[in-house]
């Protein structure tokens, strides 16, 4: 029998999430990360407990019995007893009703250990994407390219700022980094040699729109084992509407053959971005809330690693989501989950990035609490050598952390570093009672700041989408496990 005394004061909504997705009734224990499949009676009992906690603030067997009676058409006493006994078993083994561990205070050295940088090698772009947060490539400034000297200083910075860490990451970003391919090439050579001299390694990634991705560049990326993120929004009309050239011409026809050619070189890419990988990513907007069709279009092009993500836009933007869009977007995630399962069963599956959750070997809790590390583990470098918390803050003077051309580039603006370090989920009121807190880490700092002007207030639409994605992700994972079992 469930020990209600042990559950005194237990915040059900925050710690156990019960939901229906497709034909599954799922119980997710937030603090342990355990997942249970429930029958209808158990689901009813757990939802009743959840509602009791929210209305009365505590749980008891008498209150449960009363609520079940009031609702009518409910499990008989014997069934209820069986279920409560099973729930107690799970409670005792720590896989249900588990407690949140005491809040841990992250301990950081005085000077941050920066292990990853984003080099903005080009604040210029050969496309004029409507939703570009970089102001179509220039980040609110003039169109400039990073010179080799600044890039080398960036590499030296991350090798020094990473201190005892042996693995560093350097991302070539823009604008469009291939506009400055000569510098990219030289920096890969320089970075590899400089890292080797210090017994370190650098993992390089490059984010490109694909326009300039010719065979020679593809070969270079292959030979140098550089991971690549390629941009494609899906169906031709969707892509061309948002991703035109400066003269208004669409870019779909140009980029698709190049993306197909390149992705075919990496058939064994890890869906979890391990090793040298590729991802083809797109952005969906108000104009394509049925973005599942875009994902499937990309899968039909032979692309196996796909990520299509919601645009972050101000209300004045015509492509920004509107209140009525949410239901349509939820439906799209539902349809996408089912379609992925169907294709998996047919042996033509693909990975949708936001449905990838590593259920039993995901990141540790300290990592989940702190999130992306922007501003202290990760910084972005503008073409001029200025340092910012991440690529999305570049050009915003209030967020400037320092410069590669300062006397001591490692001396970052301490109060800003501290502000970013402190912006973990415990500092965000909206995250306190959210069941998805350990899977999203409080969202994107840049999106939160853009919408709320604060690092510790969240972008609510982003939260809603995150929770929906996670529900479908858990469902797809469970179904996948069931499919595999059936095949054994």
């Amino acid at each position, binding site marked *: 029998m469930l020990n209600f005394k042990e559950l005194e004061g237990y915040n059900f909504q925050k710690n156990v999430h019960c939901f229906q997705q497709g034909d599954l009734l799922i119980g997710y224990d937030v*603090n*342990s*990360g*355990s*997942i*249970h*499949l*429930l*029958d209808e*009676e158990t689901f009813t009992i757990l939802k009743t407990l959840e509602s009791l906690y929210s209305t009365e603030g505590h749980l008891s067997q008498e209150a449960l019995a009363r609520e079940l009676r009031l609702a009518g058409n409910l499990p008989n006493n014997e069934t209820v007893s*069986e279920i409560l006994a099973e729930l107690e078993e*799970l409670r005792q083994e*720590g896989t249900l009703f588990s*407690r*949140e561990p005491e809040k*841990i205070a992250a301990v950081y050295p005085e000077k941050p*250990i920066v*292990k990853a940088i984003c080099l903005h090698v080009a604040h210029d772009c050969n496309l004029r994407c409507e939703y570009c*947060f970089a102001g179509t490539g220039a980040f609110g400034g003039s169109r400039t390219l990073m010179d080799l000297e600044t890039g080398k200083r960036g590499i030296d910075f991350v090798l020094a700022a990473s201190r005892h860490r042996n693995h560093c*990451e350097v*991302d070539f*970003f823009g604008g469009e980094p291939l506009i400055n391919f000569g510098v990219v090439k030289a920096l890969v050579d320089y970075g590899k040699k400089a890292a080797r001299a210090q017994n370190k390694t650098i993992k390089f*990634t490059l984010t490109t729109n694909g326009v300039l991705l010719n065979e020679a560049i593809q070969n270079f990326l292959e030979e140098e084992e550089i991971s690549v*993120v390629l941009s494609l929004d899906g169906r031709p009309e969707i892509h061309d509407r948002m991703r035109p050239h400066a003269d208004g011409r669409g870019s779909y026809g140009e980029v698709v053959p190049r993306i197909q050619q390149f992705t075919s070189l990496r058939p064994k890419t890890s869906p*979890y*971005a*391990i090793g040298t990988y590729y991802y083809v*990513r797109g*952005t969906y907007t108000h104009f394509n809330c049925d973005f599942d069709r875009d994902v499937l279009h990309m899968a039909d092009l032979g692309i196996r690693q796909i*990520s299509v993500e*919601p*645009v*972050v836009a101000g209300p004045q933007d015509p492509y920004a989501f509107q209140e009525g869009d949410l239901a349509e977007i939820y439906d799209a995630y539902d349809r996408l989950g089912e379609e992925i399962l169907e294709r998996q069963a047919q042996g033509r599956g693909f990975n949708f990035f*936001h449905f*990838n*959750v*590593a*259920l039993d070997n*995901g*990141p*540790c*809790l*300290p*990592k*989940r609490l702190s*999130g*992306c*590390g922007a501003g202290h*583990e*990760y910084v972005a470098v503008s073409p001029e050598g200025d340092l910012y918390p*991440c*690529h*999305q803050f570049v050009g915003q003077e209030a967020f400037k952390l320092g410069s590669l051309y300062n006397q001591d580039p490692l001396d970052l603006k301490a109060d800003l570093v501290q502000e970013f370090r402190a912006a973990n989920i415990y500092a965000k009121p909206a995250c306190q009672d959210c069941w998805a807190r350990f*899977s*999203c880490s409080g*969202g*994107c700092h840049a*999106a939160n700041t853009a919408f709320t002007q604060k690092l510790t207030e969240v972008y609510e639409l982003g939260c809603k989408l995150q929770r929906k994605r*996670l529900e479908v*992700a858990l469902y797809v994972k469970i179904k996948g496990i069931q499919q595999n079992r059936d095949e054994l």
Partner: protein
Amino acid sequence: MAKHIQTVVKANLSATVKTGGCGNCQTSCQSACKTSCTVGNQVCVK
């Protein structure tokens, strides 16, 4: 085997408070603009 509840994943995330935090994992990105890796999609490198 339980009659009403089937455990699909038995995990102990809370315990990683003590065992985790090595900092060797890939940097994650929570934003919509860059798919380097978001926390929810990562695996532990340990």
